[in-house]
């Protein structure tokens, strides 16, 4: 780690930033734990089936590296407007790049490894974490982004940028609101305190998330637009034209 000193000072420390949306063990009551786990297991099962049928034998290597990519991307700190620094959560980005199923599966893999290997987010609370950031963050984020982008025009950059930005911000804020409700339902924190603390903080985090997601997507849009799950039709049509 000594050799990483320079880079680390720029990154702001690999593990310094609290992942506020990762609920630890002990914060949720048994009913909330049970319900969120059931939903998470259903999500995982459907995702596995969908991804397996779409990617077939490429599933393991491709999903593995993409999950590692999201995990590594979450460790980079960047300045958030307002003076603090934050890091990417990556749900909407994963959805836009890999689609709702593969994106959710990649996020689920990230949560499991974070929870089991690095103790970042609890074991019993993992269902809730998957529900918040996998289902709402990635799945919800993807469909919001898709709706906005397709409404503004699938093939222009303006629709893409607005879609990704709005969806990234909204998914983070909605996930924070749902997280606050889960904590309040469990009787851990009163609803007003939970909402106030979680949501006010994530309004800012969401801005950072949106800015970084749009910057990332713009790079891929300029260099390899074919990699998007919903790639713009221009490239899709022009590629076969070469072989006509």
């Amino acid at each position, binding site marked *: 780690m000594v050799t990483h000193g320079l880079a680390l000072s720029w990154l702001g420390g690999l593990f310094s930033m609290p992942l506020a949306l990762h609920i630890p063990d002990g914060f949720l009551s048994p009913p909330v734990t049970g319900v969120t786990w059931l939903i998470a297991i259903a999500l995982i099962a459907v995702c*596995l089936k969908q991804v397996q049928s779409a990617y077939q034998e490429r599933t393991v290597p491709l999903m593995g590296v993409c999950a590692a990519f999201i995990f590594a991307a979450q460790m980079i700190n960047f*300045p958030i407007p307002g003076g603090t620094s934050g890091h990417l959560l990556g749900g909407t980005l994963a959805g836009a790049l890999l689609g709702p199923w593969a994106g959710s599966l990649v996020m689920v*893999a990230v949560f*499991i490894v974070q929870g089991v290997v690095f103790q970042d987010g609890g074991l019993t609370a993992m269902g809730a974490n998957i529900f918040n950031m996998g289902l709402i963050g990635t799945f919800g984020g993807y469909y919001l982004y898709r709706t906005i982008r397709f409404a503004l025009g699938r093939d222009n950059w303006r629709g893409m940028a607005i879609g990704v930005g709005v969806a990234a911000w909204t998914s983070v804020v909605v996930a924070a609101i749902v997280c606050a409700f889960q904590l309040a339902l469990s009787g851990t924190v009163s609803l007003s305190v939970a909402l106030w*603390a979680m949501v006010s903080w994530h309004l800012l985090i969401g801005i950072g998330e949106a800015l970084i997601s749009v910057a990332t997507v713009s790079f891929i849009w300029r260099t390899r637009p074919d990699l998007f799950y919903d790639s713009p039709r221009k490239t899709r049509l022009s590629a076969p034209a070469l072989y006509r």
Partner: protein
Amino acid sequence: MQSGSVRPQLTLWHRLAPQTRIGCVFLLVLAIVSTPNGHWQTWGVYGLAIAALILLTRVSLSKLLQRLAVESAFISVVLLGTLFRDGGQVLWQWGWLRVTTVGLTALGSVTCKTGLALLALNLLTLTTPVSQLFQGLVALRSPPLLVAILASMYRYLHVLQDEFISMSRAAAARNLIGNPNRHRLVVGNMIGSLFIRTYDRGDRIYRAMLARGYQGLPTVGQSPPLFARDGWALTVTVTLALLGQAIYLLP
């Protein structure tokens, strides 16, 4: 991930099959977490059990506390929120902030639960290498496809982290971090270009796996055999979990 000071296969705990260790810790965490607020003696029993386990496994205390300190740093922020709530006797008030007995109980209870659960989980990961954890997960009937994805992810985690670190070092060396806007743009470009490389890398990995005889189904290592001691360990854990709850259930 090396457990450091603990030599493998040395203590009784290390000789248990990984799935038994996962099962014991999971049962214990479940029992800790589902205890109602204010049942201090129950957590006392579980705390003693974990202390005994720490002695048994001979993990280094400094390492355990170090990991605990890092992990509890960001939990404490959420923890404070549990203090401020209505109900019970008002102990202290300043403006709209008030600390009540109910709030204090909630804070103490959640601290107990989170702390004990973290201790138990850290014990598991300090004594069980990641490859064995994955083996245990497969033996516990997790979908093999999911575990294969997790294993493949864990293998490339450090590779991608290193790439990010070298990219950020390159950006820092070229003075690309002048103002926040520029900084965010550079980070976005970094993430974007790493995604493109990652996706291509996934294809290369797949082809390399094919060349080595990959059949499309992940190969799962032989799950280690179970002995009588695995059954005993689970029995002791369940008994302890029930014993802790029994304190408040029995008149």
